[in-house]
């Protein structure tokens, strides 16, 4: 059914599918991180979307050095030196609307976000683990963190949407009559690259295998001598990296807004569940499918684009009714 829909969409609504693939690749990144956290720690991480938003703002801070000033509409410089001060960092590369500085900011933001998630784990989730709290407590704690993160960003940067760059975005023409923004091509390429890196980490490295082992059977992992706290920290670090790349790409695709992460939470969960919770490859395809379906459905005349995010709801309900284990089965 999904396959038929996708085939029809590719033929009939190609432009929407292209947008969907771009948005889907961002969702996929987020969903892979979400499913990893679920696999290893066994709880629904409700702060995932807001972590994406936070990392996007973190990259913004690194690029511009500004936060909201004391008067509305006036920004205050807080960083004495920013990524943009690097020589040529803001010179546009090729047809993109940004220079290599954005990549540097994205990488630094990934480090910072990984650090933040690891520290939050130490401060919050590890204490819950030591108390052997139930998964509901973990999820509610993450919901609390999500709200805290959003409020913090609102306090620091204000509600006004922000952008990384203000330069004109150039279109490029691809074969098969596809026109796409150069930036969107970058988003797609970056998302796929990072997913491949995450895949290699999970399936080819010792620590990645230990993460999958822990997702499979935490007690046996402990018995085997796997340092489970180390693996948990690594899981957060990896999730942080994925979250940061997804967040920055998302802000590049749309714009920075404190609500950015929250509205994405539902599509993220839909994607992760569609792919089978705990299954990273599944989450990637789940993200793509949700992205494409969302983009195509809003081209229907009878639906206002405002219903875009309700599509994720419908997908989520349908999966839970028909295939609660997801399209690819739950497994990491």
């Amino acid at each position, binding site marked *: 059914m999904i396959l038929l829909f996708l085939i029809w969409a590719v033929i009939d609504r190609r432009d929407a599918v292209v947008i969907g693939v771009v948005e889907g690749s961002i969702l996929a990144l987020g969903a892979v991180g979400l499913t990893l956290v679920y696999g290893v720690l066994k709880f629904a991480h409700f702060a995932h979307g807001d972590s994406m938003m936070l990392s996007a703002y973190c990259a913004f801070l690194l690029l511009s050095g500004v936060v909201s000033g004391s008067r509305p509409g006036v920004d205050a410089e807080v960083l004495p030196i920013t990524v943009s001060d690097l020589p040529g960092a803001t010179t546009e590369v090729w047809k993109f609307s940004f220079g290599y500085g954005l990549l540097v900011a994205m990488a630094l933001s990934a480090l910072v976000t990984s650090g933040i998630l690891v520290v939050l784990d130490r401060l919050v989730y590890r204490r819950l683990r030591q108390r052997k709290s139930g998964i509901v407590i973990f999820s509610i704690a993450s919901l609390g963190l999500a709200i805290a993160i959003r409020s913090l960003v609102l306090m620091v940067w204000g509600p006004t949407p922000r952008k990384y760059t203000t330069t004109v975005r150039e279109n490029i023409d691809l074969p098969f009559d596809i026109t796409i923004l150069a930036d969107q091509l970058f988003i797609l390429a970056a998302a796929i690259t990072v997913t491949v890196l995450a895949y290699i980490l999970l399936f080819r490295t*010792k620590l990645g*295998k*230990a993460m*999958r*082992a822990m*997702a*499979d*059977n935490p*007690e*046996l*992992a*402990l*018995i*085997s*001598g*796997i*340092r489970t706290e180390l693996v948990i920290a690594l899981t957060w670090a990896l999730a942080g990296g994925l979250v940061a790349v997804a967040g920055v790409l998302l802000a590049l695709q749309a714009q920075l807004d404190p609500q950015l992460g929250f509205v994405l939470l539902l599509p993220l969960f839909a994607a992760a569940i569609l792919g089978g919770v705990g299954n990273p490859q599944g989450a990637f395809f789940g993200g793509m499918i949700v992205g494409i379906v969302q983009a195509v459905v809003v081209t229907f005349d009878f639906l206002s684009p405002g219903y875009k995010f309700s599509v994720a709801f419908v997908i989520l309900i349908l999966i839970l009714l028909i295939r609660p284990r997801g399209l690819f089965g739950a*497994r*990491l």
Partner: protein
Amino acid sequence: MSVDSTVVLETRELVTGYGELEILHGVSVSVCSGEMVAVIGPNGAGKSTLLKGIFGLLPVQSGAVLLGGADVTGKPPDRLVQNGLSYVPQVENVFPSLTIQENLEMGAFIRRNGVRERIDEVFRLFPDLAKRKGENTGKLSGGQRQMLALARGLMLDPKILLLDEPSAGLSPKLVSAIFERINVVNKAGTAVLLVEQNAREALSLCRRGYVLAMGRNRLEGEASNLLNNEEVGRLYLGA
């Protein structure tokens, strides 16, 4: 079999259980270097609990666990594993979504080098696994899974192996196959503490045995004496 009198593992009056529920009320066992020792007893005697208590998976209320003479009570599993203790649980003893090879790699997580060589050595002991090393573990039959669990437990070349009912749920043919492998492992110098429901088979394989009942030591002695003991025979061997 090179059994000497050096004690590799010892529990002293071990008291442990699940939260409020105390299962072991003071159990003492000891295993010498290179020795194979059976722990038998009826359901609920606390056999599996003993192994979990030794391995620090359950909180020890009192008593002590000594590994190579050093007190390791309450130490985290990665420390125990480092000191030559290995444990194969009765169920859920493999990682189902990992390949056979990856399962073995996980068994050697704390090992920095020589993992590949050790995998080859272990595969020599379990040639059936070697043939399927790239396959997912989820597809294995019960017997092969038990073999893999045993292989995983051997990855660090432990001084002592704790086995929890390796024969559970297997056909008689597979039971003798797995016991034969355990015997080979023991002959190569690894001490084994074998918890078994299958009391007769276990005792005929081991040098000494302990009989637990109601979370306490009931009997202990040479395996051959236990096999001929009237009470053991009546209660646990079905004779």
